[in-house]
């Protein structure tokens, strides 16, 4: 019978699959080497810490989007949540004199409130997409517009800079010599990597994204899981907003705007499929790092603002090709 021989090739395939998450590692190494030659500052601990800190907030969005993409859905509205959730939370706690809504909830509630608002936006997205069976792309596109409007409306487009202390803490604090936001993003990525690899619910995201009917027939509570993913996504976006607020010291009306394309770019060059069921959080993380390093390098080199997009886009295309060649499979 074929059983004994059939089992032997298992190990090489396993290795290959593991490596597929890491197709961007050569790109990162290349960037580090090239960068070190181009600018002496690039490879210093200070600069690399800066890159990580700068990418911390957006990386949480990439984490959220990767989870949503793996389960076969789509969320564009995350970018608007980044600004709107902290802004609304702040308006609910600060006095009218600071532009608040006059509701005057206790200031300690600002962070829970912010996360709650993010979760609520995710839940509403989930409701429309799952219960109403509307197109995820277009629902979240409409929500991107609406949520941003809910930021602009109450603040009248003004920047909020009289913020409760707690709102500023996380984005600015330094723990054990590293910015707190790096620790937070790192911990959440670690949790994401482990959760998707070892938790039942994590594995079920792959099943749902890979074949939703089969997942349902296998007894996975598809709707509940998807809903949870959307809520988690909204919450992570709100947390990203908190980190960004702390980093910038205020909440501008443009916070988060136009992030979503970069978020998708990071997730997809990191190997997460737009068709669902494929990709890993570790891969998405490498995508974030590539984008952060490229941006940092362009800044250090002082590439002219006019031509920056060309250089930047070209590097993304190259990263894509390298990960295509290293990954060996056609992308979608």
């Amino acid at each position: 019978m074929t059983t004994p021989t059939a089992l032997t090739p298992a190990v090489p395939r396993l290795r290959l699959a593991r490596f597929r998450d890491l197709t961007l590692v050569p790109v990162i190494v290349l960037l580090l080497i090239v960068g070190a030659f181009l600018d002496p500052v690039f490879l210093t601990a200070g600069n690399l810490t800066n890159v990580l800190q700068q990418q911390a907030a957006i990386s949480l969005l990439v984490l959220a989007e990767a989870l949503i993409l793996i389960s076969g859905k789509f969320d564009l509205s995350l970018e608007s949540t980044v600004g709107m959730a902290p802004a609304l939370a702040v308006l609910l706690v600060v006095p009218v004199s600071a532009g608040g809504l006059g509701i005057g909830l206790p200031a300690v509630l600002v962070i829970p409130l912010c996360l709650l608002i993010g979760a609520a936006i995710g839940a509403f997205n989930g409701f429309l997409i799952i219960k109403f069976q509307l197109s995820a792309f277009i629902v979240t596109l409409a929500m991107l517009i609406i949520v941003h409007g809910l930021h602009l409306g109450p603040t009248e487009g003004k920047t909020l800079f009289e913020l409760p202390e707690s709102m500023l803490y996380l984005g600015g604090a330094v723990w054990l010599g590293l910015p707190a936001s790096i620790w937070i993003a790192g911990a959440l990525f670690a949790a994401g990597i482990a959760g998707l690899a070892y938790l039942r619910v994590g594995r079920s995201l792959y099943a749902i994204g890979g074949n939703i009917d089969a997942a349902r027939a296998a007894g996975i509570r598809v709707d509940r899981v998807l809903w949870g993913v959307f809520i988690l996504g909204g919450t992570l976006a709100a947390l990203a907003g908190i980190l960004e607020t702390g980093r910038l010291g205020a909440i501008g009306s443009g916070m988060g705007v136009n992030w979503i394309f970069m978020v998708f770019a990071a997730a997809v060059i990191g190997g997460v499929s737009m068709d669902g069921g494929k990709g890993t959080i570790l891969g998405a993380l490498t995508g974030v790092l590539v984008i952060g390093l490229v941006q940092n390098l362009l800044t250090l080199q002082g590439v002219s603002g006019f031509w920056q997009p060309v250089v930047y886009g070209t590097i993304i295309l190259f990263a894509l090709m390298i990960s295509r060649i290293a990954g060996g499979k056609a992308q979608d």
Partner: protein
Amino acid sequence: MKRFGPTTALDGAGISIAEGETHALVGRNGAGKSTLVSILTGLQRPDEGEVRFSGEPAPALGDRDAWRQRVACVYQKSTIIPALTVAENLFLNRQTEGRLINWRALRARARELLDTYEVDVDPQALAGDLGVEQRQLVEIARALSFGARFIILDEPTARLDGPAIERLFDRMRALRRQGVTMMYISHHLDEVYEICQSVTVFRDARHIMTAPVADLPHDELVDAMTGEATAAYQARARTPREAVVLAASGLSLAGRYQDVELSVRSGEVVGLAGSGSSGKVSLAETLVGLRRADTGAVTVNGRAVRPGDVPAALAAGLGFVPEDRHHQGFVPLLSVAENGTMSIAHKLGRLGAVSPARRRARAVRMIQDLDIKTEGPDQPVGDLSGGNAQKVVFARALADDPDALVVINPTAGVDVKAKQALLGAVEDAADRGAGAVLVSDELDDLRICDRVLVMFHGRVVKDVPRGWSDHELVAVMEGIEE
């Protein structure tokens, strides 16, 4: 020679088919039959070797029109485009000779074609709205309609019921009288004997033998396929126990079935038979929670199960093999191990975690128990041959030692040996005390049942005990005899 990464799908295999004959190609799941088909129809390039038609070398891979003039094919994987109408699917990329498409004429042609093949489908229906069986009929009608002198049929009957198979065979005989050459792939060896003149056997990617059908006894053919002496399957005798494990009372679902009463006892295998659209599949899907009945209740072990809730049904002790493995059976990108253990993931670790080691161990056992041909537990199911994928789906249904088993067309597309394994697994489960509902279009499968419920137009019309003859059962299914 054809390789897929580490897998060698064809290894120096060859086949030569004489003009005008109907040539069978048989072999176990994963023997490389479908791979050969895709090479013979110009979809894939062999790593080594060549294809010749009437002595001439095959056209270039890009020249699809030239290929299509030489060979038409019903592929094992569906090539139906769900969003298009049946008529358009039938005449895909040949909607018109001229410039503009005349839709009225196209519909008329489609109607005519469907009528010739007695396919009862509305040409304007969206192909995606058809059942598996109807889709298969559309594919067959399309392949036969090309007027090609060589036609390949890769397991065309795996999704058809008796009368439809008969109609297909009539058609094939007529084509052969017209001098058309055919290559026919099937796991039903009696079909091979019925319509083929010669047969080629593949095993483990290699050519084993080619012989005229008339000179080859059934047993020898099976032995050639499996590479060892294999006895025909013997259904076992059982005495069902008293306890009712699965029951349904007063189930009705508008447009599908009405007033169904069902009770399956521990250690009993109940068959569910019926011709196309009898409602048997819908009923089975209701039992496991994939559909919600309008009225009535389903109980497992005497406890009512929340209607329309698959997890609740599984938790209550059901195991389930869905009708269409591609649609509801497996997640192609996930590994054999994950697909096989998907519904028992909660038993493979604590606190919501899944232990990869335990999952792997479970999977290795499944692979051995059901003799699944795979590189190992980590291979994605999407890369397996059809029959092996079916085994993975089957393995999952058995993974939890279910009290009640609902299996729909479990042996669709699986080879003789595997079929025995799968039917044996159903019987083993019954012997352990489970009750099973077996829905099938294949009379052979139904032989293991202690009794067969026959449905007709959505109603259970007869309860046939063991010992029926084919003729009797078919008559009931066709509604000829009450």
